[in-house]
C-alpha cells in the first residue's frame, strides 16, 4: 500500500491546519487537535461531516480549507443523516476510516436532536462529537438548551431561567454502544475514550465540554482552567456509558467549589447564581451516577 492509498493515515497533514480563524482559547480548536492525535495514534483516517456551526466556519473560505481531511458541510439539522449516507457507501466499499460528525450544541441539543435520535436508534456506524460551548456561538451568542441556568446570552439578557438539558441521558436512553463525556482539560482521558470509540462499531456519541471565551465572556488563557474546574467540582462529570446501561465514572470530583468557575465568567452575574443550589445539584447527580455505576459497572 502506498502513502496515498485510501484510508492510509496522513503523514504530512493535520486535521486542523494552522492559520484557521478560530478565536483564541476556543475549546473546539483544542478538541480537534486532540482528535487528530487520537486518530494518528490509532492509525485511523476520517471524514468530517459538519452542520451549520462554528466548526464549518473554521474551514475558512473557498478554495482554501483548514481541514486536512475530507469534509462535507450539511444543513443545520442533517449531519447524522448525511453521515449515515457517507458511512453506508464507505461500508459497502469496504473502506477504512471513521465518519465523524462534528457539531455544536445548537445542532445537537436543539435543531438536530430528532435527526440524531433517529441515527442513534438505527445504530448508524458513525461517531458523533458534540463540542458543547453552551451557546449559539456562530450567530453571536444566543441561548441554546445546553446553556446553563443563570447564563446571560443575547436572547436571555437577564440570565437563562431554565436548566441545561441532559443530552447524555437522552443518548444513553437510546442504548447506543457507547456514549461518553470529554474535557479538553483531561487529554489522557480524551485519548483513551477516542481509542475506545474507534474500537466499537455502531453509534458512538461523545460530548465535549468546549470553552468559548467569546460567549462565556472569559479570558482565553482561562479556557482549560475553566473546564478543569467544571470536572473537579462535579459541574461536568467525566463518565462513559456502554449500551446505555453500563456506567463508569472516569474522574471523581475532588471537593473543588464551583464558585470559581462562575466567578471567572462574566456571562454569570455573581449575585444571581444560586451556588448552594448548584452544589446540591452536582452532589445529587454524582450520587445518581455512582449508583448507576454500582448497579451495572462497565468494569464488571
Amino acid at each position: 500500500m502506498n502513502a496515498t492509498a485510501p484510508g492510509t493515515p496522513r503523514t504530512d497533514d493535520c486535521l486542523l491546519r494552522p492559520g484557521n480563524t478560530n478565536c483564541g482559547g476556543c475549546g473546539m480548536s483544542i478538541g480537534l487537535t486532540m482528535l487528530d492525535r487520537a486518530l494518528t495514534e490509532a492509525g485511523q483516517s476520517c471524514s468530517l461531516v459538519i452542520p451549520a456551526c462554528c466548526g464549518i466556519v473554521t474551514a475558512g473560505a473557498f478554495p482554501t480549507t483548514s481541514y486536512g481531511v475530507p469534509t462535507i458541510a450539511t444543513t443545520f439539522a442533517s449531519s447524522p443523516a448525511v453521515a449515515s449516507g457517507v458511512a453506508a457507501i464507505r461500508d459497502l466499499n469496504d473502506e477504512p476510516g471513521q465518519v465523524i460528525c462534528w457539531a455544536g450544541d445548537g445542532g445537537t441539543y436543539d435543531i438536530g436532536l430528532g435527526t440524531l435520535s433517529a441515527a442513534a436508534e438505527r445504530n448508524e456506524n458513525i461517531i458523533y462529537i458534540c463540542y458543547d460551548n453552551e451557546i449559539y456561538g456562530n450567530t453571536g451568542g444566543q441561548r441554546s438548551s445546553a446553556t446553563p441556568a443563570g447564563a446571560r446570552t443575547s436572547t436571555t439578557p437577564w440570565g437563562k431561567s431554565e436548566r441545561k438539558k441532559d443530552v447524555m441521558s437522552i443518548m444513553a436512553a437510546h442504548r447506543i454502544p457507547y456514549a461518553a463525556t470529554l474535557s479538553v482539560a483531561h487529554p489522557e482521558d480524551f485519548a483513551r475514550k477516542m481509542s475506545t470509540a474507534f474500537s466499537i462499531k455502531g453509534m458512538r456519541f461523545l460530548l465535549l465540554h468546549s470553552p468559548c471565551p467569546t460567549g462565556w465572556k472569559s479570558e482565553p488563557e482561562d479556557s482549560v482552567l475553566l473546564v478543569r474546574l467544571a470536572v473537579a467540582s462535579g459541574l461536568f462529570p467525566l463518565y462513559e456509558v456502554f449500551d446505555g446501561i453500563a456506567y463508569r465514572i472516569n474522574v471523581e470530583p475532588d471537593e473543588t467549589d464551583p464558585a470559581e468557575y462562575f466567578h471567572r465568567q462574566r456571562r454569570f452575574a455573581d449575585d444571581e447564581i444560586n451556588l448552594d443550589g448548584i452544589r446540591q445539584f452536582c452532589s445529587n447527580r454524582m450520587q445518581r451516577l455512582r449508583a448507576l455505576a454500582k448497579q451495572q459497572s462497565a468494569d464488571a
Partner: protein
Amino acid sequence: MTLQVITGNHAAGYALSTAGEANRTARGVACGIYPITPQTEIVEYVARFPFSKGHVVPVESEHSAMAVSIGASANGARAFTASSANGLAYMAENIMVAGYYRLPIVMVAVNRTLGPPWNIWADQGDTLMLRDFAWLQFYCETNQEVLDTTLLAFKLAEDRRILLPAMTCMDAFIVSHTQTETDLPEQEAVDRYLPDLDLPHRMHPDEARTLGGLTWPHEELSMRLEIDEAMKRVPSVYEECRQGFTEVFGRDPGDMIQTFGTEDAEVILIVSGTMATTAREVVRQRRADGEKIGLVKLKMFRPFPEAALRGACQSATKLAVLDRNYAAGTGGVFWQDTRATFHGHRDDMLVQNYLTGLCGGDVTPSVIDDIVADIGGRSEVGDPVWIGVDAREETIQ
C-alpha cells in the same frame, strides 16, 4: 422487455431500483426513504429490492431522506428518493443542497395538493414550489413515461456536462395508483444504459477537500453561472440521452416537449401531465372537424424549453396555458414562464391562463371544450380564468 400491468408508483420504484442496481459494479447505491401518500409504494418497492451492493436507510423524515441520499451521492454512490406534497416542503432545505452541490440525485415526486387543509389529490404546486433549486424537472403523463423518464433522468443528471439532480413528477392517483400496461426493461438493458457512476467531485479519502464551506460573492457567482451553463446544455444532452435510450430499449422516451397538430394551429393548448391525454383527444376531434387547433405538452419544465416552445408555436396567435397549480398572487406557474418565453419574440401572441384541475379537480373533455370556446372568443388577454369555480358572491368585502 416484459409487459406488465402495474401502477405508476410501481413503475417509478422499478426504475429507481434497477438504476441503483446498475451501479453495483461501481460504488453502489444508497438512499434515505420516508413514506407519504400517494408515493409510499415507491419507497416500499425500493425497500424490498434485493440490491447486490446497496443500502436503503428508512429514516425519520423527508429532510433526512434527502440528507442520507446527499451523503451517499457525495461519496460517489448512485442515490435517489421519492416524496410528495408537504414531504417535499419539509425536505426543501436539503433539496436545494443537492442542487447546489451538483449531486446527480434522482427524485420521483408524486404531485399532491399542499396542505392545509388536507387533500391527497393531484396538484402540481408542490414540485413547482421547488422550481428554482437547480433541479431538472419532468412532468409525466403515463406509467410508461414515468419509468422511461426516471431512467433517462439518471443518464442526464450524471452526464458530466450537466451534473444536476433531476425530478420526475406524476399526478397523484391518476398516474401513481392507476394500473396500465407497462414495458419493464431487463436489468441487463438498464446496466447498458446507465454505466458506472464516476462522480468527479466526490469525497475521496486522499483528498482533503471541504465541500460547502464559506465562499466569497465572486466565487459563488461563478458557481451559479456554471449551473446556468449546465442548464443551457440540457436540451442538446437530453436529445442524446433520448437517442441512447431508444437504441438500448427500442422505445422512444419522448421529446422534452411533445406537440400534436401544431404545424397549422392558430390556437394551441399548453398542457402538462395527465391533462395532456384528455386535451389531446379533444384537439384530435376538433381537428377532424377542421379546426386549426393544436397542443403542446411540456414534459420538461426545468430548464424551461423556451426555444422549442417558440418553435412549436410559430403558426399560432393564441395560447391557452392550462395550469394544475396556482402561485398565490399571480396565476399558474407554467403560464408565467410561457408568457416570458414569447415576450420580446412574439409580442402579438395572446397567452391566456386557465387554472384547472387544482386541488385534485377533474379536467374533463367538457372543461377543455369550455377553455377552447373561451380563448376562441378572446381578442385580448385577461386575468387567469379559474375553471370549476361556480359563480359566487364576493365573500370578502
